[in-house]
């Protein structure tokens, strides 16, 4: 599903370069649940951004579903992102000025899904994630756990093949965190590939593989 070959990322500084990712070689198969772990500054979130095609400033080869991402134009990368990837962030990153329902609608609208179809899909997701009663509320009217629930619902609404989650439970208390991780496990069991960045061994335990990063290098 995913293959990185010698991926490197660096910033220019006076007198040289500072490397954030060094010669990253990773393979992730379809249906895997992979956890990326490592200390702060190891490059975990940067690696996730590269995988999610939010970051284009890197070198090396990146294949997603056999497509050479490193050769694609920004436009084609956006198309690939739309087709395969859903994001979940530590800070939820719901759009403040949109209701729960509208937040769920956004990824579909960017995929040019017709209005009546979108309405049906959003209604289905609201029901599936048990947030029908919250559909007209704004993010600020929800608890952290509820916001992350909506964020996960938004990540999966366009039926992505891969979910990239950046410390999805970092801002949640343990019960809420567990609930979200159970949800990921369920999604994974249904066939979605999941790659999460986490500091938590407990959360890593929900997955079936761990990739450790240190100073930009894969150490395992």
């Amino acid at each position, binding site marked *: 599903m995913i293959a990185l070959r010698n991926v490197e990322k660096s910033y220019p500084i006076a007198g040289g370069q500072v490397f954030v990712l060094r010669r990253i070689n990773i393979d992730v198969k379809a249906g895997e649940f992979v956890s990326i772990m490592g200390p702060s500054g190891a490059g975990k*979130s*940067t690696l996730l*951004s590269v995988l*999610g095609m*939010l*970051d284009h*400033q890197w070198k090396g080869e990146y294949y997603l579903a056999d497509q050479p991402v490193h050769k694609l134009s*920004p*436009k084609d990368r*956006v*198309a690939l*992102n*739309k087709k395969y990837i859903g*994001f979940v*962030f*530590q*800070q939820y*990153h*719901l*759009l*403040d*000025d*949109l209701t729960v329902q*509208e937040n769920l*609608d*956004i*990824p579909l*609208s*960017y*995929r040019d899904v017709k209005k009546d179809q979108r309405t049906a899909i959003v209604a289905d997701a609201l029901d599936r994630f048990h947030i029908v009663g919250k559909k007209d509320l704004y993010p600020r009217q929800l608890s952290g756990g509820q916001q992350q629930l909506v964020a996960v619902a*938004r990540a999966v609404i*366009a039926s992505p093949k891969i979910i990239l989650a*950046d410390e999805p439970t970092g801002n949640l208390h343990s019960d809420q965190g567990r609930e979200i991780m159970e949800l990921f496990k369920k999604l994974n069991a249904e066939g979605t590939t999941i790659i999460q960045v986490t500091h938590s061994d407990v959360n890593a335990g929900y997955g079936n593989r761990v990739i450790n990063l240190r100073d930009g290098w894969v150490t395992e």
Partner: protein
Amino acid sequence: MTSDLKFALRTLRKNPAVTVVAVLTLALGIGVNATMYSCLNALLLRPFPYREPDRLVALRDDNPTKGINGAWVSYPNFAEWRASSRSLIGLMAFAGNSFNLAAKDGVPEQVDGAQITWDTFQLLGVQPVLGRNFRIEEDRPGAERVAMLAYELWQRRFDGDRGVLGKTISLSGDAYTVVGVMPPDFGFPNRSALWVPLALDPVQDRGSHSLNAYARLKPGVTIEQAHADLASISRRLAADFPESNAGWTLSMVTLHEQSGGGDYRSVLYIMMGAVAFVLLIACANVANLLLARATTRSREMAIRAALGAGRGRIIRQLLVESLMIAMLGGAIGALFAVGFLKLVVAGTPSDRPFWMVFAIDRDTLLYTLALCLTTGILFGLAPAIQASSGALHESLKEGGRSGGSGAGRQRLRNGLVIVEVALSLVLLVGAGLMVQSFLKIQDVDPGFDRSNVLTMRVSLAGKQYDSVSARAGFYKQVLARTSALPGVQQAAMINNAPLSGSTNSSDFEIDGHPFPVGRSPTAAVRSVSASYLQALRIPLRKGRLFAEHEAWDSSRVTVINETMASRFWPGADPIGRRIAFNGDTSANKWYTIIGVVGDVHVRRLTSPPDNDWYLPYSAMPRRTMTILVKTAADPAALTAAVRDAVRAVDANMPVFSVRTMQATYESSMWDRRLYGWMFAAFGSIALVLAAVGLYSVIAYMVAQRTREIGVRMALGARRVDVVRLVLNRGLVLTGAGLVIGGIAAFAVMRTLKGLLFGVSSAEPLTFIGVAALLGTVAIVASVVPARRASAVDPAIALRNE
């Protein structure tokens, strides 16, 4: 797109302060542009209300030797062109005229009309709504008198009665049969209320350039071809009639050029440039506001991108927002324009031609719409591109806080403020020079005392005034009665009051000093009563003024002005010398100069004095004269009494164009006053917008650098150091704007030269004063955020971080 619109509306509602400032800023910019476009449309762009107006041309006579450009044409020449031309469908000639229209209630009315060649309306392609056009046999001397009415006169004086056709009306004492009524809002050539046939005898003075002439080109004929056609006829006429035609050449211009469009063209384009500057400043301001907001919205954009929005989609979303602001600004701007246009129209003369309509019409609204779309994209694109680019993952990493502003974005914001200051400087220097010009014009001594003088016109039409003695008798009685009125110090008359816009000029010859054929000099002929020069306190320099009897008997005496005296008798005494009308062959044609008086600005305050040739009324007994009354107190209070004095002499004689000399003086400067006010308004708007722009950039910078300021203070910076830090930023940006603006203003002001009076386009005090003003405004705009910065509590600033 619906969701984009919905979200844009929500975003605008969420930030009401930003939205209101942006919308009002644009409304001002779009409002002044729509106003100026409306003026441009009225004067230059809107086609004349005739059939195929671009096939119509105006004919003019020029005499380069005498420095005459754009003179009217003589009827004999016109008749020859009409008979011999091959390139024209037809030619029409016309002359404005005033008529005393006898009214049903007994009060006579003076109406403006025109004498026209019979097929004028056919050639214009405008048909009467009632009745018929003139016929060829009605356009001959001695033919039955017929008239056509303007729609408005028909409605007002004849209650729109269709039975008016065939009825007889009395015009200046003569009976005319009404044969037609023209359509509404038609007043060819200017504001005519009625028309009569020209009915001139072709055997006329060929040297009298007294008619306007238009021609309609044949299909496929260019203006150059038509000109060549008529020029060849003119050359033949010059050879056949050298006395009258030598030195004259024919020119052909479009109707817009003929109607003053040429004169206004440069002014209008300069004004359009000025309002474009205002709009650019407004756009820069709004772009700055949106750039600031884009910074705070970088997280939102990053999330959207992460959810699958392409860059185009994000730009579209942001452009929808900026276009919505632009459309709101445009709608309010159109309302502003309605108000602005009223102010502009109030500053222009009321006797505008009928086709010159100032209105926020469909064209102006379309222009406004185009402006909205252009400005919406102009000020929205840069923030949209900025917001959609950048490191998305960085924005997401920073979480809920606003993302980093980025050096590029900051540079763009700084650049916009520099541009704003530069453009403001150009506009304010322009405004300063225009206002100074206007003030300088007010300093010009017109050469006469305009205080407490009432003027009004009287036109002695009809058979009873055919004789010179009848006219002299009428005016003598009127002056005697008026002089006797309580509060009147002096009553006088002249053919055309100074600065009234009309003059009569004539060629003259000097006894003992012959001029070559076609090279005799020209002077403005001033037919006056004896009391005129004293009533207006025009100073006597040499000799004496007219005696009372000399105005009415056949005394061959004259008074000239200083300019004429020094020009033709430099270093010599002109008293006792003799001058005569060029071409006068009578035995007693010579007028002896008895006095020299001070110069008077007859045409305009900005024009140098002409040769003025004052003649007693008896020497040039015009039918239409201006009566002047010098009073002890408010002259307007005597209007009714003077009217009554005229009616006491002839009950059917209307007076018209009643106004004070002060009003005439002021209206002679209407254009300069209007330019000064408009530039001052544009400059003021620019100043306010630049101040707002500078304030917003500095305030934003302070907000962005709160943590840095906190750290500096924690490290020991004093409040004054922080204030200096912030002020420096404002002053550096302003300084850069002033340098660029100064250079630009120096170049732009050179194009204004033609509009300036008594002031150089590079007047250093204006440049320095405007720069100082902008600098002061910049300091004031920077002080508020600087004080806010100095009040930062380092503990709170650092804790927030």
